[in-house]
């Protein structure tokens, strides 16, 4: 409170009457208040039975917020105090959110790196029980790659055609209905896609569990993402390009395939990559349609397969340490794959941005 008493009279009686902004706190005050809040919450932690470290952080944040608002109201007045209050809230929200998100990444990296050796990539889980050391993700990687590729082969051409229809041909009620149902599909919970393929492909058509069933479910999830991103990109193609095509006597379908789509291609590729990186991490639909196995099965059209998310799920559900270690290592591999796909997509998008 010493700043208030020192700087208060200085403005009232001083010669500097042009200080329109009023009194403001020196820059060291927030730091001092923050340090005070941390010290007080640490004292509470030492003196009373507090059970968790999360609480120290929460209490320190709360203490800082209250103290800062009081100090600022006294010295700077209501409006500036409210501004500081909001600033503090935004900063604490950011810091509070960053802690768990970074914690997820840190624990995956630190716990997963231990099992990442060549054997982990070249072995399956054949004959490996939950208590045993060893085992690997070879079969799971094969499964994930095949299922995602098949899903892309199904979803990308289909989604692209739907997007072309919506942008180039679609008019009136039908296209609005289709557009609405694309949104419905966007919000479809992934497990519903799995249940659908289970009811349709596995049970009604009696095809049994297979990698292809998983690919069907993943394709259902990919289609709306592909349609939406391709639609956005096709809309960005300037109309002058289409008109130039028609003026040269090029038929509409050739204009679309040779001029419009190639112009929008970088953006479409980015959208497809993002869709792929999303479905590569899906567990629920794969669980219901691919079933999972410990053996290597490289034929996606018959018999159970495995996949990386499924592998993580089955290993994490077991209480033994070795199983959980395998889950962490597989999680690290999955995150790396998805991050790489994402980064490639974004670099691609950044380099070929359509203006």
């Amino acid at each position: 409170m010493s700043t208030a008493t020192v700087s208060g009279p200085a403005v009232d009686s001083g010669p500097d009457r042009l200080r329109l902004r009023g009194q403001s706190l020196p820059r060291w005050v927030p730091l001092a208040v923050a340090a005070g809040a941390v010290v007080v919450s640490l004292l509470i932690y030492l003196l009373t039975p507090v059970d968790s470290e999360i609480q120290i952080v929460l209490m320190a944040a709360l203490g800082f917020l209250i103290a800062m608002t009081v100090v600022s109201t006294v010295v700077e007045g209501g409006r500036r105090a409210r501004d500081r209050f909001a600033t503090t809230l935004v900063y604490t929200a950011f810091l509070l959110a960053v802690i768990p998100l970074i914690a997820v990444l840190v624990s995956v990296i630190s716990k997963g790196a231990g099992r990442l050796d060549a054997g982990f990539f070249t072995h399956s889980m054949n004959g490996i029980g939950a208590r045993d050391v060893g085992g690997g993700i070879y079969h799971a990687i094969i499964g994930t790659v095949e299922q995602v590729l098949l899903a892309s082969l199904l979803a990308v051409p289909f989604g692209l055609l739907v997007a072309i229809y919506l942008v180039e041909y679609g008019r009136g009620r039908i296209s609005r209905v289709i557009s609405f149902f694309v949104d419905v599909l966007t919000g479809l919970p992934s497990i519903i896609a799995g249940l659908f393929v289970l009811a349709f492909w596995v049970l009604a058509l009696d095809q049994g569990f297979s990698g292809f069933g998983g690919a069907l479910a993943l394709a259902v999830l990919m289609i709306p993402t592909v349609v939406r991103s391709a639609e956005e990109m096709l809309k960005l193609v300037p109309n002058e390009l289409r008109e130039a095509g028609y003026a040269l006597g090029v038929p509409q379908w050739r204009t679309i395939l040779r001029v419009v789509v190639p112009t929008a291609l970088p953006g479409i590729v980015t959208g497809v990559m993002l869709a792929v990186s999303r479905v590569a991490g899906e567990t629920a639909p794969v669980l219901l349609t691919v079933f999972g196995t410990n053996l290597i099965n490289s034929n996606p059209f018959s018999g159970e397969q495995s996949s990386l998310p499924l592998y993580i799920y089955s290993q994490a559900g077991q209480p033994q340490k070795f199983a959980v270690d395998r889950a962490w290592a597989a999680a690290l591999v999955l995150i790396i794959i998805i991050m790489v796909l994402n980064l490639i997509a974004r670099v691609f998008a950044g380099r070929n941005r359509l203006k």
Partner: protein
Amino acid sequence: MTTEPDSSADAAEPRGAATATAPPQDPPPAGGPTVAAASKPRVGTADLIFKNLTRTAGFGLLALIAVIAIFLVLRATHALNANTGNFLTTEEWFPNASPPKFGVAATLYGTVVSAAVAMIIAVPVAVGIALFITVYAPRQLSSVLGYIVDLLAAVPSVVYGLWGLIVLAPHMKGIQLWLNDYFGWIPLFSADSVGRSLFVASVVLAIMILPIVAALSREVFLQVPIAHREAALALGATRWEMIRTAVLPYGKPGVISASMLGLGRAMGETIAVALVLPASFNISAHLLSPAGNTIAANVANGWGEANDIGRGALIASGLVLFIVTMIVNIIARAIVARRREFSGSSA
């Protein structure tokens, strides 16, 4: 003018095409009609084929939705007919017993409550992150942070589930005890014992949807016209007043639809919840007790030992989830559509 009806039959043409083809009709030069007559029929067939191909794809999408709905309903009615309990109000879940008795009440309750609590935790924080990145952070930092948030939004949910089960759940014990000690007088926070509760599941869900909502909100806030922000600041507004008068009103519909998307994700989330919750079937207002289940988690946990009726019952519960998420999506869409009407221009 035989070309005239031909081109009008192709009613659907891109916006620019109508204006581009209109002028040549007025002056009939010598070369004009012959070129059109020579090329138009060929153009027509190929164009028609391609147009119908894309249209078939469009209708295929509608057919896909119809097939999804039909097969889910078919499987579900089979099980619902065998059900001896009321599907909507029964809390028990014994579809594999004979006679089968099951209801969606407990799991639907768990789904809605865990998603709602996750929203209450995540949305304010996500808006805070988005504001920090767009308004408060220095420019270079903000683009890097935007990148990181986008990447975090892509982390698969099974990883969040693994982390929630092994890392977060033990840490949550303290804060749950604390909530119970000091806010136990509110029925919500009273519990005989704490553990892997709906509250823990909600926190995992909140952390999971946080980057998604934040990434979308950031995109919306980035679109606020700089002129609006600068005008507010030029009138002497503090930074918070600028946010309140310029950024938030502009971004509100976008934030709402982002939140709805997050809500849909949270309600449909399967694996993270299945790993965290102990899967019990009862409706309890005590958020901290180790109990609870959600529709999606119940499907993942229960389908392995399900018989024919059991699978039908799980599909029926999935249908309920489908309907609930669809309602949420329709609301979000209505909000976004209304915004487009109000703002007039496409930003």
